[in-house]
């Protein structure tokens, strides 16, 4: 049995933070100039009382409405988030109830960031091809804004909040090909929210001031230069292996849709891999880096703008926090 992508929708929270607002908050920093370099004009931020699951539910409702999908057909929920509502139960169980998806559906959370969408497709394909489920609702939702220290101008510029919903099924608009996946936990400390789990509980006292530019451990920490070096080292190989596993060449790919980390990094990768900009889709100016939702959001727009003739191949690749990475190819029917 073959697994297909059947539909994609997404949701953005209402509250917007523009570059002009960031420039006002951090006048000495040149936010406008830096934001231009990373290709982000504005980003959306979840409201104080809006959580990732709220956004995931809205993305799913949007999917059902936009593509006339019957929720009773869903027989598995895969929920990708690093912003779970609680330790237990799995937020996916709560989402099943909120979406009125049949109790006969399976549901689970998985914790991945920028590689999460590709991993979700891999697991969904496994469920479909093994005959375990036939209509998988893959949700990605992230509220990194709640992890970012208010004075962390770099991360506030890059990250936006969003949720996406995709349906993976026994039929659809594009079949899901073979995967290349990888993990290197040596990079774990370079992108991390250290406190708040069991090993490092959140500090009880009020958050301390940043020490040598590093914010307290309950906030997100990203070592930008190290992440950049990792990406530059691993991603060209990931793309090559993904092509090899699908018996394709770079010239066979209509669109490369990579994790939209930031435009500066994407352009560097694109040139390094000798891919023409016509075949390299970028969509992040209005949303920023939305972590596990960047690929489905970019895909959503690429599907509207680009040639999706039967037989076309598009390559998807996600990479980041973990370190974790994954690539696959979709083929249009």
């Amino acid at each position, binding site marked *: 049995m073959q697994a297909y992508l059947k539909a994609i929708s997404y949701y953005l929270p209402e509250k917007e933070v523009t570059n002009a607002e960031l420039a006002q908050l951090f006048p000495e*920093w*040149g936010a406008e*100039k*830096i934001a231009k*370099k*990373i290709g982000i004009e504005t980003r959306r931020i979840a409201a104080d009382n809006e959580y990732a699951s709220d956004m995931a539910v809205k993305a799913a409702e949007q999917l059902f409405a936009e593509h006339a999908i019957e929720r009773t057909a869903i027989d598995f929920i895969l929920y990708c988030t690093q912003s779970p509502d609680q330790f237990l139960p799995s937020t996916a169980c709560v989402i099943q109830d909120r979406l009125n998806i049949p109790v006969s559906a399976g549901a689970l959370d998985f914790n991945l960031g920028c590689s999460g969408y590709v991993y979700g497709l891999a697991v969904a394909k496994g469920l479909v091809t093994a005959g375990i489920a036939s209509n998988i609702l893959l949700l990605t939702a992230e509220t990194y804004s709640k992890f970012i220290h208010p004075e962390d101008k*770099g991360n506030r510029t890059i990250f936006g909040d969003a949720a996406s919903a995709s349906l993976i099924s026994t039929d659809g608009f594009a079949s899901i090909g073979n995967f290349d996946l990888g993990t290197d936990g040596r990079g774990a400390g370079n992108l991390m929210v250290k406190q708040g789990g069991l090993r490092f509980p959140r500090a009880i006292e009020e958050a301390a001031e940043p020490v040598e530019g590093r914010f307290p451990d309950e906030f997100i920490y990203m*070592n*930008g*230069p*190290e992440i*950049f*070096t990792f990406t*530059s*080292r691993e991603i060209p190989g990931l793309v090559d292996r993904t092509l090899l596993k699908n018996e394709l060449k770079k010239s066979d790919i209509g669109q490369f849709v990579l994790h939209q980390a930031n435009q*500066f*990094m994407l352009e*560097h990768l694109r*040139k*390094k891999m000798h891919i023409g900009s016509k075949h390299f889709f970028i969509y992040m100016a209005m949303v920023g880096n939305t972590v596990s939702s960047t690929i489905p959001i970019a895909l959503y727009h690429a599907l509207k703008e680009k040639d999706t003739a039967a037989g076309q191949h598009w390559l998807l690749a996600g990479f980041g926090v973990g370190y974790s990475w994954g690539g696959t190819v979709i083929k249009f029917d």
Partner: protein
Amino acid sequence: MDIETFIGEFAEQFDEISTESFGPETQFKENDEWSSMTALSIIAMVDQNYAVRLTGDDIRNSTTIQHIYDIVASRVA
């Protein structure tokens, strides 16, 4: 590779503030324009022009352009 060319390429990663006075002993992190974004630009430039992998630690542990040049020169194939 030679240091003069490298200083030129290094200076190109700074957009606005004068880099005419840049030399081997320039303490680049003292430039008002220096940020994590400039660090990324330096890493990208070195990768593109010299096919050398510079790490965040390399930059953190360096103070002058000469330091960075020496690291790159030692890794050029």
